[in-house]
């Protein structure tokens, strides 16, 4: 049940996109987000969508995975669509008396849906093709200059790495504790709100106790290996920019430029 959560799930692979430098991938994702928000015309956004589909093709990750990652945001999509359809004025297509559906409303909401889908699908590709460790490593490297203004970049990145590492462990632990309390007749599925919150206590208390125990164990283990923060720390895996990283950067920047130009030529749907 809890195992079905797939936020930021990494699929190991060996595609071109998997092998890109994580720092570059992070930058490309930023560029891509800009690309998604620039178009004010369906044609421009369709071009962006095609770009994502092409990237998925290269990565070897199936589009059905994308469908699963889109499921949680479905309510948001439906909600914004409904708002847009009914509340944008323009050429009336259907008149229901108290509300009316307009051509502009349909167009804007279609654009909105496509934008959200592109945003989620594109940014998910980053976590699908980059292991959490590589990702936090990249964040640490990219934000390293901020150390000068007193931001503890290394410590933040380490905290993030540890947090990510422990998500599956804690999920497994929760499953175990839930099973153990159910074996003693704990009922977590019925009753009112108060009952349900109360039913969480037998789960949460042991979970916290075990999380603290694990944290202490981990701290001891890290100290045993002489960890003492980021000062003067070297890395086993050096990141090095390769020609393919440059190619990916050029392609994406060209794509961004293309989208901006296309947007200049095409009329905006926002009037």
């Amino acid at each position, binding site marked *: 049940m809890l*195992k079905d959560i797939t936020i930021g799930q990494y699929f190991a692979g060996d595609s071109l996109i998997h092998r890109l430098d994580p720092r570059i991938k992070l930058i490309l994702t930023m560029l891509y987000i800009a690309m998604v928000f620039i178009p004010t015309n369906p044609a421009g956004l369709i071009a962006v969508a095609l770009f994502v589909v092409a990237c998925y093709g290269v990565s070897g990750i199936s589009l059905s995975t994308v469908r699963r990652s889109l499921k949680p945001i479905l309510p948001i999509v439906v909600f914004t669509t409904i708002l847009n359809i009914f509340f944008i004025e323009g050429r009336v297509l259907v008149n229901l008396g108290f509300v009316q559906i307009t051509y502009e409303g349909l167009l804007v909401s279609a654009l909105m849906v496509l934008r959200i889908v592109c945003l989620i699908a594109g940014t998910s590709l980053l976590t699908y093709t980059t292991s959490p460790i590589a990702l936090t490593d990249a964040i640490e490297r990219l934000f390293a200059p901020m150390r000068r203004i007193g931001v503890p970049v290394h410590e933040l990145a380490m905290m993030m790495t540890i947090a990510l590492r422990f998500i599956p462990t804690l999920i497994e632990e929760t499953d*175990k*504790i839930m*099973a*153990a*309390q*159910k*074996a*003693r*007749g*704990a*009922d977590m*599925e019925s009753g009112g709100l108060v009952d349900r919150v109360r039913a969480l*206590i*037998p789960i949460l*208390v*042991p979970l916290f*106790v*075990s999380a603290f125990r694990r944290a202490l164990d981990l701290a001891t283990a890290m100290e045993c290996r002489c960890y003492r923060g980021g000062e003067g720390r070297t890395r086993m895996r050096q990141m090095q920019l390769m020609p393919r990283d440059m190619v990916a950067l050029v392609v994406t920047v060209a794509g961004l430029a293309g989208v901006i130009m296309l947007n200049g030529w095409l009329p905006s749907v926002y009037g």
Partner: protein
Amino acid sequence: MAVIKTEHLTYIYGAGTPYEKRALDDINLSIEAGEFVGVIGHTGSGKSTLIQHFNALLKPTSGKVYIDGVDVWAAGKAALQGFRFDVGLVFQYPEHQLFEETVYKDIAFGPRNMGLSEREIDERVREAAHYVGLTEAMLDHSPFEISGGQKRRAAIAGVLSMRPKVLILDEPTAGLDPRGRDQILRLIADYHRTTGSTVLIVSHSMEDVARYASRILIMNNAKVHAYLPVREAFSDPEVLMNMGLSVPPITRVFHRLSQKGLYSGPEVLTLEEGKAALKAMLGGAKDA
């Protein structure tokens, strides 16, 4: 009568995903009331998955589980809780599930979920504490400030207090020192003797199983390899070794002896039996 029975029980983890794994494969089993069963099998053989079917925590992918002759999953969701009171399951490292302010309250968690009266709850808590050897004074302590062995016993008492007809323990001695192990095993054996309830105990220690169990359930690669009396189970060490299991050291010694023609008699399972057999052999030699 069989207190637990399974028919073609199959369980598949993560069905339909790339991580699909057949954890139980067509299990047909019938455990009689009053037995003391040792469940053995290498890691990943399906032991833990199997016992979680016995108290309706896991739903079979296909096949049926009967408790006291009642089909568990045909009775509807509301009845599941009742089966969990009938078949008490003590998980591995059960002390990790303690959560209440006092040991007393934690042991009372099960009975309270059963909806019993305060008087009945009190009686059961004290009875369970007595079985596991916790003193009255300890009941008022926080479960987080007592020793490791005491925590384990408090957690076991939390299941005993439901007075289950069947008691299942998943490696109850894992991580305990030798004395703690003996205490736990002895209290389980005492509980079995005094209440006459059915007990299943998952263990990696062949010695413990040989010493306490009347029958042995051998799991291998998601299937039941055998379910038979202890003495028969340890009569063929080769088969067990091939499954990554073993027989108690003393049994192995007497096997070697009988292979050399020095010993002929029933299977030796415990040190006491070994001592007696050895004495008889030496005594016999003197007479000759």
